[in-house]
């Protein structure tokens, strides 16, 4: 309880993710037919109006090196299969969480992952059925569909409950962080993993800002862009 009280009284870590350029290539290859018909190919027309907003909202932020609170904040998360897409296509869950994959399409899907953090194959299942997967180990899990190669989702399994996604403006907040020294990790599927060390005392909130991609001196560009290998 003490710990819990202390936690409740902890300070917040807030910050802004700044993305300087577009990182994700949305369906960048037009269909052959579009080229053959000599139509003007509009790439990324289906992406968000502001591509950077999409990038900012697809950054996962979590604390590394904090107390592991595996069982305490487990929440049930859902990734739907609708219109041949995973919705949402990025979830951030603490280790030990369970994610369900309901199929809402009128066709079969076959969800699977080959990631180290969690490897599974849910098999073919039709509309209305759902499958559930538990993620005990932290790490990044890339999820695909056997039947539809365009479908992809990412599940970031974090070591503790202090984890979130930035919003469209890049703002994030990790609430009630107990005092201590942590590493704040920002992860983007394409840009990679960014770390900043922050020390939290009880009274004041901390502010951690990230700029993606980062080419500043000292920190350098993070070369490890394989989140699955990140630990």
């Amino acid at each position, binding site marked *: 309880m003490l710990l819990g009280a202390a936690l409740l009284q902890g300070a917040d870590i807030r910050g802004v993710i700044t993305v300087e350029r577009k990182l994700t290539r949305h369906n960048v290859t037009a269909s*052959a*037919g579009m080229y*053959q018909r000599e139509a003007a190919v509009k790439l990324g027309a289906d992406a968000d109006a502001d591509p950077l907003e999409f990038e900012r909202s697809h950054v996962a932020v979590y604390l590394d090196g904090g107390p592991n609170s595996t069982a305490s904040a487990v929440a049930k998360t859902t990734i739907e299969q609708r219109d041949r897409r995973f919705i949402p296509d990025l979830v951030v869950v603490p280790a030990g969480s369970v994610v369900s994959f309901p199929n809402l399409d009128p066709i079969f899907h*076959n969800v699977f992952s080959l990631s180290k953090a969690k490897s599974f194959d849910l098999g*073919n299942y039709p509309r209305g059925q759902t499958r559930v997967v538990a993620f005990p180990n932290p790490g990044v899990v890339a999820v695909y569909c056997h*039947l539809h*190669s365009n479908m992809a989702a990412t599940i970031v399994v974090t070591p503790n409950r202090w984890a979130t996604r930035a919003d469209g403006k890049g703002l994030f907040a990790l609430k009630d962080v107990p005092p201590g020294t942590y590493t704040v990790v920002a992860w983007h599927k394409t840009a990679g993993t960014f770390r900043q060390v922050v020390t939290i005392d009880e009274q004041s909130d901390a502010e951690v800002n990230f700029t993606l991609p980062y080419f500043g001196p000292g920190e350098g560009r993070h070369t490890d862009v394989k989140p699955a290998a990140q630990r």
Partner: protein
Amino acid sequence: MRFATRTFLSSFVPFAVLLAVSFWAVRASVIETVREGLRASVRDNEVALAREQTRNEIRDRKLLQGVAENPTLKAGLQLLATERSARDQARNTLQDQLSEICDALSFDFIMVSSAQGPPLAAVVRETGGFAPVNLVHLRPPEQGFFSADDRLYEVTSVPINEAGIRVATLTVGGRFDIARFGVPAVLLHKGAVIAMQMRDLAPAQIEKALAACTPAADCETRIQDDAYLSLPLELTAGVGEDSYLLRSLQDVDAASAPVQAVLRKLFLVAGLIALAAGLGISALSSRSIARPLADVAAHLRKSAATGELPEFPESTGGVQEIRDLTEGFNHAAKAVHESRERLTRAYVQFVGSLAQALDARDAYTAGHSRRVSEYSCAIATAMNLPAQDLETIRVGALLHDLGKIGISDLVLQKPGRLTPDENELIRQHPVIGRRILENVQGLEAYLGIVELHHENWDGTGYPNGFKGEETPLHARIVKVADAYDAMTSDRPYQRGQSHAEAIAILKSARGSQMDSSVVDAFALLGDQRRRRVLDGTPSLRSLSQALSIEHDKSQNGGSVPTSREGEETREGIEQVATEQRETS
């Protein structure tokens, strides 16, 4: 047929035949050339098409091999194979995948079929998306044409292998558009047209025309009176029973039409020139022949009309044949003349003997006919009558009393005055003479003299009572001569009157019994002339000379005519006839 027409035909017809034959030959060769050119162009096109087709096929095949390795598609097939409960959804899943592939690769048709053959799923492009195809009767070939829902597709297939084993076949295709061929083409399926480019032709016509063509060979056929050339386009067409046949179909006549038009114009001009040349040549050549011929014909017509046979002048045109013709005619004319002369001679002899017989019956009138003839001839000469008339008068005068043959000697030789009945008998002699001579051919000219030499100028004569010039001049002349000789001859009952007395009497009868002009002409004749007649030495040849001399001297009084009757001989008459002949 006129000579000009004949020459025209004989000169133009060979031209025309030559032109027609050469036109036909040139036209045939031009059409053949155009046809060759078309054939070549169609073949070139075909080669180009085939090359592009091959390129497309290779590209498609590579693409398809990639698609065939698509793991999601394999997963979909796996799903369909294994899923038992929700089969429709499984099929939907596969169709959905196929639609995606089809859209990405810009095909219009895509199908997967099991390794054994039956199709598993297929979709076609519709406006605005893809629609599944009913699989019940769907049996497209691995490669080639096939039609579904009244649309024609050209498809190709690749196997889908799993671990080296063929598990399924992927068939994709695009809509077949016959308009993309550079040449007019037609696609046949079992002899029926299912696609064609010719808008103005009915499919039935094409089917009928191509029915006789061998599928793999060139073919020439006719549609709507136009020649068409059809070549098989070597494209992937199905084989066997369900074969599709793609053929080009080019209108050769339309392609060669401009050339043919030029040819036609050319030959029309040549034909017109030949026609003009033929006309000109025939006109010239016929004129050089037809004109002398026309002269000859006119000559002959004239001689036919007159009864004369005048000879041609020596040179009639420059044409040898015509000269031969006229020469021949001249020979014939000469022969006719000769025979006619012979005839005349014979007939003069006949007439002479007749006259002689007549004279011989009556001693008192002996030589009368001859003298009347001589006098008449003299008068006629003095009156400048033509030789033709002279001859008529001479013979006519000889015969003028022939009718007396039919009168009894009792009456004719009766001394003293005649009773009215006897006189009436005597007055029959002109009609009798006419009746005798009427039946002798060739003596028609003398009938007038024989019948009418007792007509008077004032119409009181016999037998018809003709007045003035109703009586022909010949008869009027003979009448004067007859009267003169009757007056100057001695008779049993009276001596002949002198020349002057006779002339005086004749003059007194001018205008009543006698024609004045004839009497005047006779009065002007000199005594010498009359004497020569009496002497029996007539010379008609020198008659005109004598006349001209005597005309100047005028009359030298009338001496008493001496009678020499009975002295005339047959020879004398013959001599006269001979001389007469020579003058004509």
